[in-house]
């Protein structure tokens, strides 16, 4: 068998990623270190600014909260789907996938209709006479969190349905037959076995929220800047490309570190690997 053929077949894909993804990224990275004031001056400058630190912390905070919410609502739902009868299961999976295939603009926009001044919540509360002035829910950090939780929960559900379906039903029954209550069975057997799925889902939700642009722009307004909106503003409004590059590298490094660390954790938790 010739040794050239396999390489020949993968070369176009390798070249495409190398030239069109890796090189531009290296270019962006190099920009941040080639500064007149010194190699790390760009980063020094970024972290020196109280505002930037606030933006970074807000972005991380939002992503963490969204991840926790996604796990909290994703786990029971995925468990329900995994245990549902076959015919139901595919309908429920479609219902979870459908939002994912819909534009993020549409899905974020929906929350403007719900949370806005004339939105459903305000209209309902005022109609009931519970409030006299509309609440300002839109353009807050809470709105971003709700929007992102809405955006990314399906990802969590789908990651979990896979692992939960793979948990042998008889393992759960074995636990119960040995005297563990359903609650104990959940903590001691189901959750540990589902942990790889939780981690995969959490990584997807966290990195997705951490780097999201559309939802913060539509639901967060001007005041609740996150890293992605800051990057866009520096690049396209301030035309400060050095700063924009620095933000880009910070986002990239954090995202990739989270992915690498968590995938290592997931691998260690996987019993089959031992």
């Amino acid at each position, binding site marked *: 068998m010739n040794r050239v053929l396999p390489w020949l077949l993968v070369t176009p*894909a390798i070249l495409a990623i190398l030239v069109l993804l890796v090189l531009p990224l290296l270019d962006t990275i190099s920009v941040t270190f080639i500064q007149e004031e010194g190699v790390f001056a760009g980063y020094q400058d970024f972290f020196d600014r109280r505002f930037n630190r606030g933006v970074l912390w807000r972005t991380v905070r939002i992503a963490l909260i969204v991840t926790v919410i996604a796990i909290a*609502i994703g786990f029971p739902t995925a468990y329900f789907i995994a245990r549902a009868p076959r015919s139901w299961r595919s309908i429920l999976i479609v219902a979870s996938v*459908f939002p994912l295939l819909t534009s993020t603009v549409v899905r974020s926009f929906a929350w403007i209709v719900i949370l806005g001044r004339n939105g459903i919540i305000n209209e309902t509360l005022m109609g009931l006479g519970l409030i006299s002035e509309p609440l300002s829910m839109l353009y807050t950090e809470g709105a971003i969190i709700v929007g992102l939780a809405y955006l990314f929960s399906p990802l969590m559900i789908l990651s979990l349905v896979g692992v939960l379906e793979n948990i042998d039903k008889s393992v759960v029954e074995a636990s119960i037959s040995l005297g563990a209550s359903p609650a104990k069975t959940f903590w001691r057997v189901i959750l540990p076995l589902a942990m790889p799925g939780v981690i995969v889902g959490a990584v997807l939700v966290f990195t997705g929220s951490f780097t999201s642009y559309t939802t913060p722009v539509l639901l967060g307004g001007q005041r609740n800047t996150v890293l992605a909106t800051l*990057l866009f503003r520096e690049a396209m409004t301030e035309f400060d490309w050095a700063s924009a590059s620095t933000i880009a590298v910070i986002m990239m490094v954090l995202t990739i570190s989270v992915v690498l660390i968590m995938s290592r954790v997931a691998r260690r938790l996987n019993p089959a690997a031992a």
Partner: protein
Amino acid sequence: MQRSSPLLVITAIAVFIFLLGPLVIVAAASISNTEFLAFPPQGFSLRWFVNVFEVSAFRDTFLISLQIALLGTFLSLLIGIPAAYALSRFGFALPKALSNFFVLPILVPQIVFGFSLLSAISVDFDLPVFPTLLIGHTIIVLPYSIRVVGASLATFDFSAEEAAISLGCPPMKTFYTIVLPNIRGGILAAFILAFITSLNNVPVSLFLTGPGISTLPIQMLTYVENFFDPTVAALSVLLMALTVLVMAVVEKTLGLGYFVR
């Protein structure tokens, strides 16, 4: 005969209302006969649907999005299928890290990639907007092509290919007559997934739109930031209808198992 906790059922129902309710609300708001977004809709009117087609920016950007998505998906399959084939067939002869390397476009935050493309390619090489957009979209959907086609190849028994060759069929022809027909489902799934991903993409396109050229999601974003009428709600309904159509095609041809992978 098996009991299911009522708490679990209630939670699941609540979550599905949370997942699908907002989309229903958008759909309802699109038929409101008001100048602003209203739910429950006040009056009934299809004028916002008419308006979608009257706003030329939506029409133009939709066509551009369509071209980019079709071309980008096609290109990604063109380089992705051989790569997926090589990984399943000759995986042993290739470095293990290669399949991780092919995930890179998903790993890198898209907004970062979009920005890098702008600064490195569009500006440094003075490349026009359209090809730069095409490059960006091709790269971000490439992992889908490789992985979905790869999943399909993983269930293919390559001894059938060897059988064909032993029967005198030349290798290239064997690929077309034996391998390709068996992974048609995977290719279709990859195509649809990549197409929808490209069509909906915001963060990569964000930096790459230029004078006269923009994509539909970016145009919608701009519109929503400036207008509060239900036009975007109507447009959303049209896009959801497109998604339903695509899902129906997938369901008909492949079954829904493909979405879970």
